């Protein structure tokens, strides 16, 4: 992977949350890179640290109780973690934009949608209010909202969830960011709308050439839309691969378990497999490999129980963190 093609690279980022019960290491030594114009998916169960990773890229981890402990986030050759808050504000919304899981609560209920889109445009593109208003109408049209002249004057509560998510997308892409972070953009929507929203993101990506960092727990979305994918489990990335490679040959037992638990076309009658056990509590992670209590190999292996495997490149473009993965020991 050449460095020129990389838009964002996250290197060894750790985030901890300090509370009275103890320190929760929500994200540990996470590294991945997003290519220009590509879609990178970050997959994992609830609470595995996907969203915190996204927030740390935006430098929006609530401080206190959270803190980015170490690591580097390099975006277009800028070290984001070294920027002042003011410089960071120039990047948020302008270069990196984000859309959230719940469109219903992500729009401010007291302003019309046009007002909210226009505010960001005015701020980042130094446009006059009337011009910004015109661009927000344009943006609504672009994200496929019918009758944008009318809709732009409406309040969020007058719209459906799908439309609200379209508005959120319009808001996020209004300043033509080079990176769009989509934090479970379709989780709160029903399936037909999900497909429409994902198609819309694809279309916008085709038009503007932006990169998308897609955070999801839906492997179906990953298979269809992402170029590369990283699988997260209990605060760490356990496997990074090209999407096709991951689905063809999952290396980490967790990824294997996830894929086995997916229903597939053509196979019928078989019971779907599940991964036994539950996600560990971030305050009390198990020693060694965090997956070992649930792992068919690791639960009996001394090394898995005591030593934590680091993410290692086992072949070009393919990283995994498992003692038993083929090629892991050699590399």
């Amino acid at each position: 992977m050449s460095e020129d093609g990389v838009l964002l690279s996250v290197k060894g980022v750790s985030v901890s949350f300090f509370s009275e019960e103890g320190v929760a290491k929500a994200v540990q030594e996470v590294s991945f890179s997003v290519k220009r114009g590509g879609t990178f998916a970050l997959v994992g169960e609830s609470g595995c640290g996907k969203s915190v990773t996204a927030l740390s890229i935006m430098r929006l981890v609530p401080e206190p109780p959270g803190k980015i402990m170490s690591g580097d986030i390099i975006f277009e050759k800028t070290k984001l973690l070294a920027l002042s808050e003011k410089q960071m504000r120039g990047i948020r919304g302008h270069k990196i934009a984000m859309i959230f899981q719940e469109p219903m609560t992500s729009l401010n209920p007291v302003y019309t949608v046009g007002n909210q889109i226009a505010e960001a445009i005015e701020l980042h593109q130094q446009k006059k209010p009337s011009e910004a208003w015109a661009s927000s109408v344009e943006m609504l049209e672009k994200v496929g909202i019918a009758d944008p002249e009318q809709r732009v004057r409406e309040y969020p509560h007058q719209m459906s969830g799908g439309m609200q998510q379209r508005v959120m997308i319009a808001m996020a892409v209004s300043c033509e960011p080079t990176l769009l972070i989509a934090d479970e953009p379709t989780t709160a929507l029903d399936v037909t709308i999900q497909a429409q929203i994902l198609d819309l993101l694809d279309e916008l990506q085709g038009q503007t050439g932006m990169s998308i960092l897609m955070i999801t727990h839906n492997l179906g979305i990953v298979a269809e839309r992402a170029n590369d994918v990283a699988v997260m489990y209990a605060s760490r990335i356990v496997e990074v691969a090209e999407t096709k490679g991951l689905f063809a040959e999952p290396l980490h037992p967790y990824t294997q378990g996830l894929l086995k638990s997916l229903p597939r076309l053509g196979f019928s009658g078989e019971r779907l497999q599940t991964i036994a056990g539950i996600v560990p509590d971030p305050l009390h992670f198990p020693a060694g490999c965090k997956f070992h209590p649930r792992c068919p190999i690791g639960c009996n292996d001394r090394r898995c129980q005591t030593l934590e495997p680091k993410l290692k490149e086992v072949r070009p473009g393919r990283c995994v963190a498992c003692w038993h993965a083929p090629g892991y020991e050699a590399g």
Partner: protein
Amino acid sequence: MNKESQEKAKWGTSYGELVWGEFVKSRLNVVCLIFVIFLFLVAIFAPFLANDKPFLIRINGQLHFPIFKNLRSTDYCIFLAAIVGIFELLLIGRNRRRIAPSIRGRVLWRQIFISSSIILIGTVLIFVFIPRRLDATDYKGMVASGKATDAIFAPIPYGYGRTNLKLREQPPNREHWLGTDDVGSDVLCRLIHGSRISLSVGFVAVGISSIIGVVVGAILGYFGGKVDFVGMRIVEIMMAIPVFFLIITIVAFFPRSLLNIMIIIGITSWTGNARFIRAEFFKLRKQDFVQAALSLGLPLRSILFRHMLPNGIAPVLVNATFGIAGAIFIEAALSFLGFGVAPPTPSWGQMLSLGVSTTGRFLWWLTLFPGLAIFFTVMAYNLVGEGLRDAIDPRLRKAA
């Protein structure tokens, strides 16, 4: 589709309109609001309702307009403020229909800024240029002795500063509907003029305390952590001081002026607002739309006061209506104890205190009528506040 629903469809329904629709559903709310508006009208037009000068009088065949000649600077200021205020309200209504939503916020702030400057500059000019008149002409005597004719007096033809010891301590009668006080002033006339004091104390004091409370609460709630810890301890220290005694102490040191009382009530009663706003901001900080606003890179000022404040202001608005009632009460209590505004400026609390006269008699009309005025005003404000609270959060009413 009729015109109104067309307009609605065109502009959408704002939060304000939703709350208003909910508010007017209750008849009690409307009655109380009308009563409050009525009080305002009485306060604004006090010199035309109760005045010993006639509107119009013919002396030696020449027409005179003594009431207008004798208006004082304060009267002009109140008229100016009322006119500008009503004009501003009309403008706000018009903004929603005429001004493009993209610039409406800015237009509104500019209008408010211009209106307040007009009021401020006007007040200064009025006090500089309008001389104080002392017109001691006894117009009623002139009418009685036939020197003047065609006089039209105000409905209550007495001045609030009149002293007439021959008519002192009279119970209600045909001449003086609510009786007279210890120096022979008409009680109804003093009640009408006293409404100005009560209302302005309520508004100015609550205005001061709301602004301090909102700013302090917003900062504490948004930043949290150490800022919040230190700030809340200061708030708690303020709350631990018995406010009423603090006010009495301060009033004893400073001259007895209305402005001083308003400022003192204002700067001692902001703690409640600060706590409300702090709690709201704690809750709002975690809301997705605040995160979304942050992720758009909006500046802190916009996040705090544009995105968070309008969503958290409701309890402060409700508290403000209760606060107005409270301030009226404190002013009445201060005046009752003799720390309030100095006579002859009329104030409801001060009138109340005259009920127990120096001669030892209990003058029931001096206690009852100002007491009723205080009672109804405070009750109306409280009910408006309660109605507003229910309208803002309909779940509360169902729970109650």
